[in-house]
């Protein structure tokens, strides 16, 4: 993405939880589970590539 004249590569890790109509978890529990899902899908830390544009 281009931000303040800089092109930055931004990647995201996403955790997905599908809540069925019979699911009894609370909003807080679902958020925690989605958070865990996200961590499991996260790639190992690496150097962010960024280049300056003039």
């Amino acid at each position, binding site marked *: *993405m281009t*931000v*303040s004249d*800089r092109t*930055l590569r*931004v*990647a*995201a*890790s*996403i*955790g*997905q*939880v*599908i*809540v*069925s*109509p019979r*699911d009894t978890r*609370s*909003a*807080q529990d*679902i*958020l925690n589970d*989605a*958070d865990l*899902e*996200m961590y499991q899908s*996260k*790639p190992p*830390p*690496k*150097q*962010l590539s*960024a280049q300056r544009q003039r």
Partner: protein
Amino acid sequence: MHPASRDRHQGHDPRRPEASSADGSLVFGEETAAWPDLADRYRMLIEHTPDAICVHQFGRIVYMNPAGLRYLEADGDPNRVIGHVITEFIHADSIASMLSRIADLDCQGAVSEPSEATVITVTGAHIPAEAVSVRTTWSGQSAFQVILRDLTEHKAAQKALLGQAALINHVSDAIVSVCRDGLVTSWNPAAEQVYGHSSTAVIGRELSAAFGVPCYPAAIIAAGGRIRDTHVKTDGSPLAVTVSAAQMGDGFVLVCADQTAIRRAEEHFTAVVESLDEGVVVLDHTGHITSANRAAKSILDVHAGLSTRGRAWTLPFRVFDTDEHPVDPDNHPVVSTRRTGLPSTAVIGIERRRDNRRFWLSLTATLLDPDDENSSIVAAFSDITSQHLEGKALVHAATHDHLTGLPNRTCVLERLDDELARPRSGPVTVLFIDLDNFKAINDSHGHAVGDAVLESVADRLTEALTTESIVGRIGGDEFVAVIPNGNGTEADEVRIELSCR
């Protein structure tokens, strides 16, 4: 001579000896054959006369007619009276005058002048009476016949008249009577005080001269009997009065109440209400505005005489509630107070038709006179527009992320709870989105760039998802999306949206 006693002595010679029969009623001597008939009629008369008649001899009561027994509250038991000493039934203060009254009756048939006495009944009650004594004979010996007339009502009437006269002299209202020609016939002390004219100066003069302005009592009566006017005192100063007029005999009586102090207080309070920042509107029971102060006029564009009922467009403003929905007329505080009689308070929004400007008002409606079923209603309101908008801004600030404007963690959890509580057939997808290496961007490019990245991510997430979805920022680089009726591919869509541009 007492008129009744004079009548009673007509037609027979009072010097004739009288005698009592075995049952105590009066009979006359038997010398003349024609007398028994006459005596019987006389007896009937005495038995049925409403005046109390008693005969006392040697200080004791020997006869009392039924009216007398009733008078002494002894009608059930004549023995409480017959044979008793006469002075038992006369107040101590009245005994001397009674004795002097009968001492003057020097011959048979002599009648005293009526005199007042206080009679004491068998139950101890004191009754004012007028007494006439007649010297007579009883069983051949000298006796006194007393005719008593109850003066209670007479005394009460006399007292009332005295009271009224005293009232007219002591009231603070001027009471003036005029004859048919409009000339003053009486002028009470209060009138002297209020107007400064003495009664001798105005009696016999024109009413208009006394009041300093033209005054027509008949016109006042025609106008309902009561008007507000300004008269002129002797010294030329104005006098605010309420004038009531009534027909009295051939002329009129006028009561003029000095309203100067009340009118001054009225002006004072009107000025206070006018100067208030709060709007004050008074509505009568038909829904017409009877008064509105400066603040009410300037905010609501209302004026006295305006009707608040009927079709909505008659009002110069629209009313809505805090959720910005039009207010149901039945829930308007004024209508609710009219219905329940209780004060009601609400925050309402109004949009002025003239310029579509919106105001938020905290409005309280109360009955002006709770005892009157047709009471007017006072609607008082403060303009709380700025506080209301500030309050809304505070609520927004407390539930939203300042940087991106997205709902914050608290708000997302609240909305997710709402979403889960709603009956639904399909699944809800919840995405937890965390930017990889966001810290590195901040470190290498500065926070301003980091913030711009977050704002850009917020925009892309919002664009990628339907308006039914909830997108929130719940931490530094953590976002959440709640997608109702998802099909399971949203995570990929979001991933593409974030990385492909």
